């Protein structure tokens, strides 16, 4: 009798093990299939996840110093605003650092952005371009002065 319960417990335990392993394997396979489908639908043949990850990792790495500058300058402005007699030279220097870091941050984004778009299939790129054009046009409509001039000249 005792031995029979031992067998029942063993069968149950093995069934749970098999079920857990099977579930894990199937879900992993499904994830992989879904990712591959997305990759082949959106990007040119031969594009890998590693390539995309690398692109964003490089972007993150190159932007990091500018992020740090931005945070430090923001903090300095925050503290200066709390002082009773803030130093205007320090304020101007912090504001200049913010302007420079923002410019660099946006400039650095251009290369990986273009590289990312360059990895797309031509028909997909056209699709995203057309979708973005709607947003672009609507922003230009809101902006009455559509002529492209730098901000300082306004």
């Amino acid at each position, binding site marked *: 009798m005792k031995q029979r319960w031992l067998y029942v417990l063993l069968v149950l*335990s093995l069934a749970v093990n098999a079920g*857990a392993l099977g579930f894990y394997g199937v879900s992993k396979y499904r994830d992989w299939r879904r990712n591959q489908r997305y990759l082949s639908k959106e990007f040119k043949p031969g594009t890998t996840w590693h390539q995309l990850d690398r692109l964003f990792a490089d972007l993150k790495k190159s932007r990091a110093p500018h992020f740090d500058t931005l945070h430090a300058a923001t903090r300095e402005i*925050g503290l200066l605003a709390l002082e009773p007699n803030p130093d205007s030279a320090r304020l101007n220097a912090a504001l200049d650092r913010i*302007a420079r870091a923002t410019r660099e941050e*946006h400039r650095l984004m251009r290369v990986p952005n273009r590289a990312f778009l360059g990895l797309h299939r031509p028909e997909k790129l056209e699709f995203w371009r057309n979708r973005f*054009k709607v*947003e672009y046009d609507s922003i*230009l409509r*809101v902006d009455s002065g559509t002529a492209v001039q730098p901000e300082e000249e306004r």
Partner: protein
Amino acid sequence: MRPKWVVVLLVVSLVGNALELSLYARAEWRSHQESQKFGEWVQSLAVSKNPKVVVKEFEPRMQALEQRKNRWETELQWQDFQQQPDSAIDKAALDSVASIARQKYELLYQSRRALSAVDDPKLRTRMERRWRQQMGIGE
């Protein structure tokens, strides 16, 4: 099968069950922690990326600057879609984004300097806290 081997197999299988359970619990706990961390990161990013003026009178000017920033950032993104991006527009957009960022932070600074003129002490305290949070200054 001899009972001795049944017991060994059962023990191994039960250890496997326990391992699966612990791995599952760890994965759940990690995903919970990660989603919590992600939520906090999004919140702090939203606050630091969209700093708000702490005095209402400055809002129209800030909104106008935000609109200009949005317009130039869209211009930059639009250039990314072009086969031959226009370097003059690129430069103009980058200069404008930088200039707008400077103006925005100057306005933020001015709004904080004007906070002492706000009569409502509750509002002042709330805005003071927001200021510290968005500028990355601890309590």
